[in-house]
């Protein structure tokens, strides 16, 4: 293996993008998992594909369309209580497939002379990240982190007990909508790393793994970030040397570690 991967610019960009995505994914994933927003997040990520198709058809930046639709869908969903949304799961399911249907149709109807590689949106193509994308990704990542940590206790309190936060005169609906919107932004950022179909696994595996070891929210969150960084970086390197798609490698690596940890933990328990 004489290849020095950092001598390739696209690899440097990929690893940096993976790093930024990991920061987002660790923080937002912890909220998504503990507040049980996984299905809602799935709906948002697939709806985003509709926006991607629309902007592509209009000759605009597809990923910008994905961001726009993800944020709008998140704000609408965040307006309602998650328990109410989850009880209407059929509608999320519809949002899910309608987003995909609209996206695929609009891309196929678009007047552009080339069609984008659909696979790269569905399963991610982190090697396509350009230097100018990284600038925007950094600004976005740090904005999300600043908002999350600035109002951390309010987000945590509405994750735990919205009603009690409401009693303390916290604008619960506003904070929930912000939380959802930041989740939407995170999802589209992660889509660029692992793609629409795999994004849910990247959002949940680090937190699930972290919750095996810790039972304090802040530690779970911190460890989720570390696991995400490890997964994206090692996934990128592995996929480079094995010549495989990066997204699936990251996800399968994560799933393998999660599964292994569960088994070890169970064995240890039964040994005691």
């Amino acid at each position: 293996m004489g290849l020095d991967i950092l001598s390739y610019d696209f690899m440097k960009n990929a690893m940096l993008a993976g790093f930024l995505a990991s920061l987002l994914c660790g923080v937002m994933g912890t909220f998504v998992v503990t507040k049980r927003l996984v299905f809602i997040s799935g709906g948002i990520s697939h709806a985003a594909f509709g926006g991607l198709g629309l902007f592509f058809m209009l000759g605009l930046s597809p990923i910008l369309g994905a961001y726009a639709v993800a944020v709008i869908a998140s704000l609408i969903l965040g307006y309602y209580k998650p328990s109410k949304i989850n009880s209407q799961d059929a509608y999320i399911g519809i949002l899910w497939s309608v987003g995909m249907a609209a996206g695929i149709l609009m891309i196929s109807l678009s007047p552009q002379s080339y069609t984008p590689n659909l696979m790269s949106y569905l399963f991610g193509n982190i090697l396509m990240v350009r230097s100018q994308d990284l600038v925007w990704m950094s600004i976005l990542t740090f904005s999300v982190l600043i908002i999350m940590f600035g109002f951390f206790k309010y987000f945590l309190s509405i994750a735990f007990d919205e009603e009690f936060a409401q009693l303390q005169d916290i604008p619960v609906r506003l904070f929930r909508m912000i939380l959802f919107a930041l989740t939407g932004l995170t999802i589209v950022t992660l889509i660029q790393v692992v793609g629409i179909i795999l994004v849910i696994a990247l959002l949940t595996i680090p937190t699930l793994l972290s919750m095996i070891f810790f039972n304090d929210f802040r530690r779970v969150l911190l460890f989720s970030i570390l696991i995400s960084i490890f997964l994206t970086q090692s996934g990128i390197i592995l996929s480079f040397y094995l010549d495989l798609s990066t997204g699936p490698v990251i996800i399968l690596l994560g799933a393998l570690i999660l599964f292994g940890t569960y088994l070890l933990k169970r064995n240890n328990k039964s040994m005691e």
Partner: protein
Amino acid sequence: MMNKTNTVIEIHNVSFGYRPNNLILKNISFTITSRDYLVIIGPNGGGKTTLLRLIAGLLTPIRGKITYHPPSLEKKIGYVPQFSNFDQNVPLRVLDVIKMGNLKKYCFLSSSRGLSDKEPVELAKKLKLDSILDKPVSELSGGQMQRVLIARAIIGDPGILLFDEPTASIDSESRQIFQSVIHELNQRIPIVMVTHDASAIAQEVKHIACMNQELYIHDVGKVSEENLEKVYGCPVDLIAHGVPHRVLKSHNGHR
């Protein structure tokens, strides 16, 4: 004027229902005074919890009005719900949950204990929670959880305390701690408690209301068997989940 200053909350002709033709509460009127200790008993599904949530401001009446004296009291309501209201999936420790009772004051970023934690730790001691401050809330017993929720409700220094079924599933130690904390708080603030467990009624109780969609309020000692039967729609002996119950005998025995 004199009795106006004494009244802290006025519930005036309040009705509530999720559908207008299906009311859960009908024309409820009563007042809560500054050092009241009001217990509302009634069967499950009779609207007790709904009434508490209306007083807490978590629901809005479809008819009628609730007035707070002073108006700022509306933002200073301590509420102890039944456990099921929050998500145990969120990994939090006892100390964190107590601190959540006063979000405007306490910080949640550092996982180590800071100087500002003195007050919550003191309170935890009073409720005998000091040995389990770092325990995850998902691992607590019913009684411990109840005490954590009480601590969370009083750390923000409320002007009134509302309890929903506080003694539903607690051990005798928790029950004792609970009674003494309530007694102490009632020296300063009014207490409103709803329960279907009439044995929870302590000697200090000043008023008892019976409710099943409508509300009948009594001074202690005037609760008649007839009224209770009207509320529950069955003989007193059969009240409370089919368990033969001593609603009146145990209660009157205290007087």
